[in-house]
C-alpha cells in the first residue's frame, strides 16, 4: 500500500504510529473527522479510554465512516482501543455502546497488562513466524460473546482488517514485520 491515513484521535499516541509508517516509506496523513477515508490503509491508533474514544467518534459522526471502511475491500488496522471499539459494548469509563462490528465486549482485566507478551499469529496472515512477542498496554480486553475462549483476543485478522490489542508501532522488529506481512496480505 502506498497511502496511509491515521485517524487523529485526540487521545492516541499518534506520533508513534505516524513515524512507523513514515519509516516504512508510506505516504502518511493525519485524518481529521471531515477528511475522506480513501487511503490504501486506514489506521485507528491506540491509547485513550473506550468511553471517551466512542464519545469522540460519535460527536464527530465517525461511526458510520469507520464501519463502512471495515466492511469494504480496503485495509483497516485497529490498534488497542482501535480494536476494542469494534465490540458491541465496552465498560471502560462506564458502560458504552461500541461500533458493534464484532460479536465481542470489552471488559476489565484482573490486572493491568503492561509489558511484552507472546502472541500466536493467525495463519491467514501467512507470516514466516507462528508466534512473536509484542508490547501490550491495556487494562481492558476484548472477549468474544461465545464464551468458548476465556482469554481476551490479542489479534484478529479477517479479509482486509487487522485488529491488535498490542501496539505494533512499539513492538520493535516484531511490530515492523507484522505490518509488512499485513501490507502484503
Amino acid at each position, binding site marked *: 500500500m502506498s497511502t496511509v491515513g491515521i485517524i487523529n484521535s485526540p487521545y492516541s499516541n499518534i*506520533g*508513534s504510529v505516524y513515524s512507523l509508517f513514515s519509516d516504512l516509506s508510506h505516504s502518511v496523513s493525519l485524518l481529521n473527522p471531515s477528511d475522506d477515508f480513501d487511503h490504501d490503509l486506514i489506521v485507528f491508533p491506540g491509547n485513550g479510554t473506550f468511553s471517551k474514544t466512542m464519545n469522540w467518534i460519535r460527536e464527530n459522526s465517525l461511526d458510520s465512516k469507520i464501519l463502512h471502511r471495515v466492511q469494504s475491500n480496503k485495509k483497516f488496522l485497529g490498534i488497542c482501543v482501535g480494536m476494542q471499539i469494534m465490540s458491541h459494548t465496552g465498560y471502560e469509563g462506564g458502560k458504552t455502546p461500541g461500533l458493534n462490528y464484532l460479536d465481542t465486549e470489552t471488559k476489565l482485566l484482573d490486572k493491568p497488562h503492561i509489558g511484552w507478551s507472546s502472541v500466536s499469529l493467525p495463519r491467514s496472515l501467512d507470516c514466516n513466524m507462528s508466534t512473536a512477542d509484542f508490547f501490550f*498496554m491495556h487494562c481492558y480486553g476484548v472477549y468474544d460473546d461465545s464464551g468458548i475462549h476465556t482469554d481476551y483476543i490479542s489479534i484478529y485478522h479477517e479479509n482486509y482488517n487487522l485488529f491488535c490489542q498490542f501496539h505494533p508501532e512499539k513492538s520493535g522488529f516484531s511490530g515492523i514485520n507484522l505490518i509488512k506481512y499485513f501490507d502484503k496480505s
Partner: protein
Amino acid sequence: MYKRVIPSILLRNGNAVKGINFNSWRQACDAESYAKSLSIKQADEISILSIGNVNLPSVLDRLNNISRNVRTPISYGGGLRSLSDIYALMQTGVDRFILNSLAFDDPSLCSSIISEFGSQAAVASIDIAYKDNLIYRYNAVSRKFAEIDLSSTCKYLLEIGFSEIIVTAINCDGTQSGMANHLLSCFDDLCFKNRILFSGGIGIPEHIICPLSHHSVSGVLIGSSLIYTRYTLSDFHSVVSASFKLRSLYHV
C-alpha cells in the same frame, strides 16, 4: 508476561545527565542518539525524565525528535501539570506519562487525566530516601523530605488509577552499588503484583535479579550502569534470560 529492563534518560536543561543521590549532575550523552541506540538494541522500554526547571515546549520538541527513531515504548515525566500538557505529550510519540509531584499535589486532576487516557498510560513516580528504619518521600518542588508509610502511599497511588509506580531509592541512585532490596517487603501485598518499577543503584547486571524476583516488580530502571560501565543492554538481557524468561530478540 516478561520482566522488563528499562533504560532511563534524565534531561536537565535539555541535556542528558546523570547524578548520584539526586545530586552532582554531569552531562552524560546525547539523548537522541542514546535513545535510538537503545531502540536498535531492543530495550523493553525507555523512561525519560526531566528534572529541574522544565521548559515543556522545548522538551516536547526533543521528544518529537527522540521518538522518531524509537520503536520501543517511551514513558515521559517532568513538568506535566495539566490535561493540556498530556494532550501535547501524546502527540510527540510518547506512549505513557509519568506523574510525580502532581500525583500528591492534585490527585483529583490526575484522576481526570487518567479517565481521558486510561490507567495503562499513567505511571506514578515516587522518590524515597531511607534512614534508621524510616522512609521519607522527597518532594522535588519544595526540596523537602516527609516521612511516609511506603506501602500505604503506593496503595493510594494505585487507587488514584495509576497502572504502575516507579519507586526510586535516592540512597542508591547513581551509586551502582546495588538496589534497595530491603524495601521490597513493603510490596508484599498482592495488590502490588506487577505494579512496581524499581529504580536506583544498578551497577552490574546481577543487581536486577533480586528485585525482578519479587512478585510486585514488573521491571527495573537502569541509569548510570549503561553509560559509565562496560555493561551493555545485552549483558542485562543475558541475566534476564538466565534467571527469568527473555522475550525473543532479533539478531541485528
